[in-house]
């Protein structure tokens, strides 16, 4: 109602016919309404249909990644916490679509260090940019920013909470390698306690009737809250502490994560388990032919380097898919439809 009155007042000076004015107000309100919903905070907000829609968008961008679709738009990348990989991926996505990119990669250069609130920074940048890609060390920062910002927010990671663009590229990689998302056996390995990528994976895959296998040391086992989530949504899961060729022989997707030293209270325990979750070449002897190994990277000592040339290895291609997934997320957040992308006349190559 506040928007409606404001728009009516703003338009009155143009002396439009009543019909034109009503149409314009309706169209603008529709756009505002959509804008409010266009932010991407967590993949859990997306339906099965929406995930499939975004995957189709990513496919279009993989076919033709270089376009002038976002020409004239400004994308802000605000990284309150450094993350070179994610930032470069988002900035490349924006640049390959013709957008201009502003922002910062290092929070030390911002007024946050002078005590400025997140709200003030977001409101200021909203004056300059059409969309904000934000990485923040505090959990819930992206949700809050999406509530206060007049432009769409894309969450590029908020503390240990959510990282939906990583999830989207994981889903796209699974879809590309398996030809489907439904009825897959997905094995998650390593740090299942703190690894936000594996938690987001549960949230996103529950639409697709998966069977999960959780392979982790007891100290880093899947938390009860996520196992409850699986039970509540009828997702099958099996827990393992052993990691060998037999255990992973039934996998379609083997999703590796890093076991981090700093997560352990007992360093003896870390020394005991750190090499137990190392994927070795001979462990692939019984793998299904279609099985692919994913890893959000950076890798430290979870996957033997000799596996890199093996046809099951997919982690570098997975990172490449991030570009197309992020192009899709940026366009969707800006209100560009799949139809428009398919009929795009700005394709360069």
């Amino acid at each position, binding site marked *: 109602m506040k928007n409606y009155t404001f728009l009516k007042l703003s338009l009155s000076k143009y002396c439009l016919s009543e019909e034109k004015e009503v149409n314009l107000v309706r169209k603008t309100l529709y756009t505002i309404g959509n804008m409010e919903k266009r932010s991407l905070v967590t993949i859990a907000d997306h339906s099965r249909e929406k995930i499939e829609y975004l995957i189709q968008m990513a496919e279009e961008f993989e076919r033709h990644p270089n376009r002038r679709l976002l020409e004239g738009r400004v994308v802000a990348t605000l990284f309150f916490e450094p993350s070179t990989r994610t930032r470069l991926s988002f900035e490349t996505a924006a640049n390959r679509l013709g957008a201009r990119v502003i922002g910062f990669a290092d929070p030390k250069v911002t007024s946050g260090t002078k005590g400025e609130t997140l709200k003030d920074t977001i409101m200021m940048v909203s004056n300059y940019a059409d969309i904000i890609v934000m990485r923040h060390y*505090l*959990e819930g920062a992206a*949700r809050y920013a999406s509530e206060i910002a007049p432009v769409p927010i894309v969450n590029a990671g908020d503390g240990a*909470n959510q990282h939906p663009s990583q999830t989207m590229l994981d889903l796209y990689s699974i879809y590309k390698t398996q030809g489907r998302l439904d009825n897959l056996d997905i094995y998650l390995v390593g740090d299942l306690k703190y690894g936000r990528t594996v938690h987001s994976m549960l949230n996103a895959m529950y639409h697709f009737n998966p069977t999960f296998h959780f392979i982790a040391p007891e100290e880093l086992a899947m938390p009860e809250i996520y196992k409850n989530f699986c039970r509540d949504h009828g997702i099958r899961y099996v827990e393992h502490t052993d990691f060998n060729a037999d255990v992973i022989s039934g996998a379609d997707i083997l999703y590796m994560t890093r076991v981090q030293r700093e997560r352990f209270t007992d360093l003896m325990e870390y020394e005991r388990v750190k090499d137990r979750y190392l994927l070795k070449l001979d462990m692939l002897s019984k793998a299904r032919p279609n099985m692919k190994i994913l890893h959000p990277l950076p890798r430290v000592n979870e996957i033997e380097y000799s596996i890199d040339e093996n046809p099951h290895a997919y982690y570098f291609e997975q990172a490449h898919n991030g570009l197309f997934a992020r192009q899709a997320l940026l366009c969707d957040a800006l209100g560009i439809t799949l139809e428009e992308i398919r009929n795009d006349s700005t394709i360069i190559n």
Partner: protein
Amino acid sequence: MKEKQLLVAAIENGTVIDHIPSEKLFAVVNLLHLDRMTSAVTIGYNLESKELGKKSIIKMADKFFTDEELNQLAVICPNLTLCIIHDYEITEKRTVALPDELKGIVKCANPKCITNNEPMKTHFHVHGNERNALKCHYCNTIIQLDDVQLVEK
């Protein structure tokens, strides 16, 4: 036999909250902002109670709360009973009910939650089939109702 004496004086008009577990009394006082009230407030602390052992009671003259205000009390005392008094008579008895959403009442237990680092209101949703937990709208942290801490105002 000696006639039993009322420990807390009756009020003409207002609200009485009885059967408050004594350890929760001061949380209730804070939540209702009784320190800012200008009318008479009588607080009975550690009174004998057959049900609770020790109970507390608050009588607020000329004060009536909205449902929204009272339902916030359910966060700290899920089974409170309230009496609305008119002309020394109880005209209505009410029990509190936990609302589905709580804004600006409960503090998030996660120190890395945005709500603990920005000047903003907290926001929780009631979580679980038994409605015995709260989930932070921002960082998704789940807090059991028994462990809830209120925001300092």
